[in-house]
């Protein structure tokens, strides 16, 4: 690789990290794209396309497109299963110590033939395919489930792999990277809906989160009730779960739109499904959304008010109690599926990373920018923020923010080269 001033480390490979890495790589920088999971893509890689007869502008397709480009890019080096241990140095010349956990399945050799999964005797399988749009495509071996790592003799997958891609004796690898700038794109975690006990998430199978729904539709292409596999007839979406409340002094920007778009998709697939959305304020601003809202209004029942309690009747229906604000009375209604539109919460491990990198966090728990007129710069020169780790963003905003971080990194590095040449 080049001298440190031509190398950038991008931490986190969600859409913002991928966008940032691609932009830098296209500008001629060498990029390490470091990801703590085994696959690249972050949250948005598991979202379905929400188009009906027309594109609903959900941007999910942009994600698969960019992931593909990033994975194929000769100047981007993927470091999956990796974590940052230590940082030293300064802008233009950082040294980053990382640890990479072994994959056990060699990325280059695995051809995704599924023979290993077929022979794996555990339940659930200890070796399995990555999510459909995730990359790399190589299979994932879960140490916690694998018999081999429990001291048993099992060697079935290794023996059956036609390309000899499975190697049990891989060890974690320590590495030191020299980089000129760091883009932090570690994203968010969805709000844990178990935190709202009265809504029954985790207790009732047919109370699911928006993220669950995204994933079901992506995987299956259609929606069935988790409890009995039937087609849901009557669905409620509840907005602002984990946004705009005591613990979260912000709006998550994405939930109103994803809820309406998902509702639109379900209605498109099964037109006589009844859908109700409970909300506080509907966030329908933004380029290209207003015209959809008009259509949604005609198809979806909107109720201003947030339900306080969900109970399950003896027939398995979900009994939702809510205050209908426009009528000022407490009402109840039954549904067969309730979707909690969970919001964007700060990443659970952000604090650790903030400590290692020495960057500040805002009161809300996201990483903080240096001043109100900067969007990417942190308090540490040479460390930039991209995407939802700085605050809630949808996919287009995350992409734009990722490109902006790349732009700032490029400016910093061209200046630091300039400094060295002149000084």
């Amino acid at each position, binding site marked *: 690789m080049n001298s440190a001033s031509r190398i950038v480390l991008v931490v986190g490979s969600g859409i913002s990290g991928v966008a940032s890495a691609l932009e830098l790589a296209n500008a001629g920088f060498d990029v390490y794209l470091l990801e703590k999971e085994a696959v690249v893509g972050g949250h948005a890689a598991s979202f379905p396309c929400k188009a009906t007869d027309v594109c609903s*502008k959900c941007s999910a397709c942009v994600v698969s497109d960019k992931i593909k480009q990033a994975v194929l890019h000769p100047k981007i080096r993927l470091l999956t299963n990796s974590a940052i241990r230590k940082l030293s140095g300064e802008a233009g010349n950082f040294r980053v110590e990382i640890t990479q956990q072994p994959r056990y399945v060699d990325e280059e050799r695995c051809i*995704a033939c599924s023979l290993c999964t077929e022979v794996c005797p555990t339940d659930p399988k200890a070796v399995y395919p990555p999510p459909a*749009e995730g990359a790399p495509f190589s299979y994932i071996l879960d140490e916690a489930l694998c018999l081999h790592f429990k001291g048993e003799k099992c060697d079935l997958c290794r023996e059956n792999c036609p390309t000899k891609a499975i190697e049990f004796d891989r060890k974690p690898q320590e590495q030191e990277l020299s980089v000129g700038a760091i883009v932090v794109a570690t994203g968010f975690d969805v709000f844990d809906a178990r935190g709202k006990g009265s809504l029954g998430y985790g207790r009732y199978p047919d109370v699911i989160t928006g993220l669950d729904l995204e994933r079901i539709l992506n995987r299956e*292409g259609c929606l069935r009730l988790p409890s009995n596999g039937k087609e849901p007839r009557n669905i409620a979406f509840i907005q602002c779960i984990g946004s705009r409340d005591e613990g979260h002094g912000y709006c998550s920007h994405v939930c109103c739109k994803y809820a309406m778009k998902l509702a639109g998709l379900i209605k498109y697939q099964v037109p006589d499904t009844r859908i109700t959305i409970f909300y506080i304020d509907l966030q329908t601003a933004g380029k290209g959304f207003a015209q959809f809202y008009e259509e949604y209004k005609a198809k979806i029942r909107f109720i201003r008010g947030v339900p306080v309690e969900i109970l399950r009747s003896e027939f398995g229906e979900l009994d939702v109690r809510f205050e209908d604000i426009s009528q000022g009375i407490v009402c109840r209604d039954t549904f067969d599926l309730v979707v909690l539109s969970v919001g964007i919460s700060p990443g659970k491990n952000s604090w650790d990373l903030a400590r290692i990198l020495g960057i500040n966090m805002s009161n809300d728990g996201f990483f903080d920018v240096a001043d109100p007129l900067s969007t990417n710069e942190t308090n540490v020169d040479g460390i930039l923020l991209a995407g939802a780790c700085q605050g809630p963003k949808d996919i287009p905003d995350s992409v734009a923010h990722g490109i902006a971080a790349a732009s700032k990194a490029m400016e910093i590095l061209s200046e630091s080269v300039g400094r060295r040449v002149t000084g």
Partner: protein
Amino acid sequence: MNGCIVAFCCEHSAYPAADLAGRLRLHYPESLRVIRVPCAGRVDVIHILKAFENGASAVLVLGCEDGACHHITGNTRAKERVKYCNMLLKEVEVDGRPVAMFNLSPNTPHKFVRAVNEITKIIKESGR
């Protein structure tokens, strides 16, 4: 010919969707023959007619979702051409062999399979 279905697949949407269907082992009729094109807008009337001349039982033109074409208007141009072909086939009284346009995006393997199944059903119903 053996009654194949010829599918012109845009490389930005339908082609990766078909790949994904394969990776997920979503099965569809073997009679499908995919021709990769850079954009649905590249597909011309002669390509569709040639497929029928060679004995295809149906032709699919698969492009990006309406409003999300990588080349902005490629999918609408394709749709117009499919419409025109249907008219043409009717005029020369070619026994209603179906040409259909479907819109999808690269991450919709299920939609791809649905499109193939749908056209297969139409062929079956028309007794071909």
